[in-house]
């Protein structure tokens, strides 16, 4: 075990995939000499050469479209989208091409493309640098969507995503890039939890709190604070947004009877809506209260000085816990 930042853990995971599988290639803007704007690909071009770690023109549709062609040729492209807000210009390639090529070709052409996207806010960034676009991709058949929350998962799940024969949208919470955690780089990948499995981060008995990515650490803090208040919160890191591990969520909700889902992305038709609806369908008779969502507002991402009013923080998550417990009136709306 070594203490690594999430960014460094990703770097080592990518390095291992590049070393283990000669069909793995990396494409993106500034990923070569610069090592990426977050340094996730630091040193990889120097080690593996410019044909395997490719700086591309500034054209996201071009990056995704050429990744499709590389996959046709038998490669496993790993694409870096520099910032979440830049993925939209590649949206057609992802939705109309990457997601459905397997179906279009009746299974003949697999596109094992990993699309890495730094995601979310909390970094005081400029416009288009703090988006949470995950729901678009969860809604698209043919894609798998994951978001990592810890350096250990960053190290293992990036390798699992690359090895997966389906296209994977791989979200990296940028405000956790430089948070350190213990990583076992020696463990065999086969022994790691499956990419699609949720993880109970903190066990608890009163409330199930489901979240993912950058908010997992906040949720753990909230569970600690709630425990001081005598409330036992079970924190589940969803890890895979599509397919979601509904079994793990349902098992928890059947024990606690109360569900809070938290994410940075907007409220309307967000991942929280899907998780809450599925849990309600599957656990209706176990629920003591209506599920509560704690999410970003249905607004364009606000200016940096106001983002704390948009991204759920510890207090807003605790407020959600209070509401699901009936301690404060639950209006069914997001608390501002």
């Amino acid at each position, binding site marked *: 075990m070594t203490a690594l930042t999430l960014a460094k853990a990703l770097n080592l995971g990518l390095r291992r995939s590049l070393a283990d599988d000669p069909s793995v290639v990396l494409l993106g803007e500034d990923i070569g000499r610069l090592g990426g704007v977050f340094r996730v690909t630091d040193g990889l071009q120097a080690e593996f050469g410019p044909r395997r770690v490719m700086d591309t023109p500034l054209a996201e549709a*071009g990056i995704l479209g050429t990744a499709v062609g590389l996959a046709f040729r038998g490669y496993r492209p790993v694409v870096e989208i520099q910032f979440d807000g830049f993925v939209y210009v590649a949206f057609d390639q992802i939705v109309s091409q990457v997601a459905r090529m397997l179906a279009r070709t009746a299974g003949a052409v697999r596109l094992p493309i990993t699309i890495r996207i730094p995601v979310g806010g909390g970094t005081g960034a400029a416009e288009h640098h703090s988006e949470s676009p995950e729901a678009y991709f969860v809604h698209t058949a043919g894609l798998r969507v994951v978001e990592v929350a810890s350096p250990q998962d960053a190290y293992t799940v990036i390798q699992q995503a690359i090895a997966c024969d389906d296209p994977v949208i791989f979200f990296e919470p940028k405000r956790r890039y430089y948070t350190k955690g213990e990583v076992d780089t020696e463990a065999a990948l086969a022994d790691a939890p499956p990419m699609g499995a949720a993880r109970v981060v903190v066990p608890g008995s009163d409330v199930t709190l489901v979240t993912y990515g950058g908010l997992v650490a906040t949720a753990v803090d909230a569970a600690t604070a709630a425990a001081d208040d005598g409330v036992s919160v079970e924190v589940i890191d969803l890890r895979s947004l599509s397919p979601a591990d509904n079994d793990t969520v349902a098992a928890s909700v059947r024990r606690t009877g109360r569900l809070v889902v938290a994410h940075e992305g907007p409220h309307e038709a967000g991942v929280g809506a899907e998780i809450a609806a599925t849990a309600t369908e599957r656990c209706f008779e176990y629920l003591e209260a209506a599920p509560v969502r704690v999410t970003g507002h249905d607004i364009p991402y606000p200016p940096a000085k106001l983002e704390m009013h948009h991204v759920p923080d510890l207090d807003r998550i605790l407020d959600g816990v209070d509401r699901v417990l009936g301690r404060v009136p639950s209006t069914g709306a997001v608390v501002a």
Partner: protein
Amino acid sequence: MPGITDSTTRDDLSPAGIARENLTTHESGAPDERPVDEGADGGAGTVRLLDPDGVRHPSPEHDRWLADVDGDDRALLQLLEDMVVVRRIDTEATALQRQGELALWPPVLGQEAAQVGSAHALRRDDFVFGSYREHGVAYVRGVAPVDLLREWRGLVTAGWDPYAVNMATPQVIVGGHALHGVGYAMGVLADAERDAVAGRDATPGRDATAGRDDGTAAVVSYFGDGAMSQGAVNEAFVFAGTWSAPVVFFCQNNQWAISEPVALQSPVPLVARAAGFGLTGVQVDGNDVLGVLAVTRAALHRARTGGGPTLIEAVTYRRGPHTTADDPTRYREAAEVEAWVRRDPIDRFTAYLRDRGVLTDAADADVRDVADRVAAALRTDLAASPTPPPLSVFEHVYAEPNPVLEAERDAYAQYLAGFADDAAGGAR
């Protein structure tokens, strides 16, 4: 692969098929160093070896790419036969749509020389990415005629295995595939790097592809004049140019993007775009099968030998509707269509072959016979194409297990099973 039939292909039908090997392996000659051609159809810069009256005009620069064909009557007849058969498939498909047997069909009438000529320049190990109108290219690549139609009948998402013929299945998003061709070509370049690391067959997907090449494979991306305005196509030019990727962009300028004339896409000849991207640009009379064959061979040779990508603008005309759902009488004059009928690609090549004595009455009868047999087989095969079972819609969404989708499938299967109970047990 499910859904691929054993239907009759071109190779089964064509008595001249043996000539195709000669046509598709000609790779000698020096790279074409022709500068960017500019000017409209028929202008000084447009390559035209066969004029609309079927008169062959010598051109040492281009004739060297036709040395084998010019001396091979069977090869010449094969080009004619393929154009005639493609037109017959197109005619049959249009009729089948009118008869309610197809949901839709995008006719290729008038573009036979552009497609057959360019497709004959390809090697088997080259790869093609095409739009939804590349029926002629697909036919020459070996796609069974019925497999061209099953998608348009609504039976399948696409009719064939791309790796069986090294041609991707039709792309409906205009220009969306141009980038795929560039990526594939980047992969050809990257192979050298990978092969230095591991054995050639060391990686997944590698052995799935048909006819592995020696590293000199090239790619052709086909699209039309409308696609020239798409971002994806322009990004493809950027990537191809900066990578010097072994790719040929084959733009069939058929003058119309549904109702929009090419002037709406570009104020300059489409081929003039090439220079700004660092591509070699060539404009060719797209209704001259020999000219198209020559410039495509030159472009592929350039691609294979490190000369970089080429944009070919084949100037042609879509004589039919955009699709069978379109009514071109609303946006263009009959006289314009008539003018292009006089430049018909098959008529001019027929006149040339008659004049040369290659196309005898007997040979002509053979060609007609192949077309008749293709048409008959097409109808028989289409009628025999089954509708896939309902639950097949859940197949091939993911390559690996997906419990959420599997639960959906199982629930729908249970729902369908309820009707089976009804059928077995009578009314509820």
